[in-house]
């Protein structure tokens, strides 16, 4: 139950885009139409669900202070936490590569849909951000980490699909001042959506 609450909280209250602004670059660049936005959203969710548990295990059994105690008495003092940034990004980059190869082999249809987005994801801040938040918050188990990952991913998906839908309509039905067209107005819409999402802040679950 605790984990389910965390999952819901990660979608709405701790939303990656509206609460932390993570993954904004691809959020702004790839939100011109709903279909590609959905593709990228699915890919990001997928990567978060995969990398968060892996990085959690890495953090708990290798990187944290005293984490190497299982390896032998003399390693119980070792603190490798300064390496965590490099390890996390290496895991993310290599998982992206692996997932790309696996998807290409087993599901060419999905690959042609996600294809161009997969390599982009290695440098999506939302993924690395997820791992860093996981490290900061000391999650209790792998399962908790996975739930948080799934929640953050879905929250991101929700946000990018919503903004893409708004932008699709916006282009044809509105008369925006010239200098604001394109990226400017997208910023303002995102801000307004962010304010709307802040209404979830008071909810305690």
């Amino acid at each position, binding site marked *: 139950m605790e984990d389910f609450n965390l999952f819901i909280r990660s979608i709405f209250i701790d939303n990656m885009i509206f609460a932390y602004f993570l993954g904004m670059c691809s959020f702004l660049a790839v939100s011109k139409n709903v279909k590609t936005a959905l593709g990228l959203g699915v890919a990001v969710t997928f990567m978060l669900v995969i990398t968060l548990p892996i990085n959690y295990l890495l953090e708990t059994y290798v990187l944290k202070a005293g984490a190497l105690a299982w390896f032998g008495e003399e390693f119980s003092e070792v603190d490798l936490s*300064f390496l965590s*940034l*490099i390890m996390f*990004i290496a895991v993310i*980059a290599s998982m992206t590569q692996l997932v790309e190869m696996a998807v290409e082999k087993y599901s060419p249809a999905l690959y042609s849909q996600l294809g161009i987005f997969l390599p982009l994801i290695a440098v999506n801040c939302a993924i690395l951000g997820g791992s860093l938040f996981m490290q*900061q918050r000391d999650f209790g188990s792998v399962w908790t980490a996975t739930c948080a990952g799934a929640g953050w991913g879905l929250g991101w998906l929700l946000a990018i699909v919503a903004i893409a839908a708004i932008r699709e309509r916006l282009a044809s039905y509105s008369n925006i001042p010239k200098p*604001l067209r394109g*990226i400017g107005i997208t*910023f303002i819409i995102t801000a307004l959506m*962010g304010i709307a999402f802040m209404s979830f802040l008071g909810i305690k679950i």
Partner: protein
Amino acid sequence: MAQNNRTLGVLFNPLSKDNPVIVQILGICSALAVTAKLEPAIVMGISVIAVVAFANVIISLIRNTIPTSIRIIVQLVVVAGLVVIVDQLLKAYAYDVSKQLSVFIGLIITNCILMGRLEAFAMSNKPWPAFLDGIGNGAGYAIILIIVAFFRELLGSGTLLGYQVIPDSFYEAGYVNNGLMILPPMALITVACIIWVHRSRNKDLQDE
């Protein structure tokens, strides 16, 4: 002379015409999250300038030996190494700011400005121009960060760098700080206003 102009262009173009944040729309994530106060914004700006400049030099030095198929991983490792150094330095000498910046120093690794500059410039240029390009782009990023943080801190808390600048008499006359400016969404609106002003001055950047 032409050579000289080009070098100067590499250094100064990113400040306005080619600004990484408001024209190329790169590195937005951290630009928004750290700008509630001026001090972390300045520290973040300096960190990014340092990381971009040195990553550009390193990648430019080894650009001929990197196999193209794994270049992204090589770039990420170089950047991650530099960011770890910055992170440890901040923890050692500016612990409070480092606490405020929390995960965002780590997120410099995935800052799109870095990957963008490494891919677009450092992979095909000599170390010295690459260094200047890094400084220029880092500074372009820092400028936007400082402008946004300036307005947010001034209007949101009535202070600058922690010192109160709005006189007490204003508060006595009924002036109140706008709490909304502290909240994250207002960073987006501030950036949108900067884009608005910038694009109405540079007509060729406007979208149709």
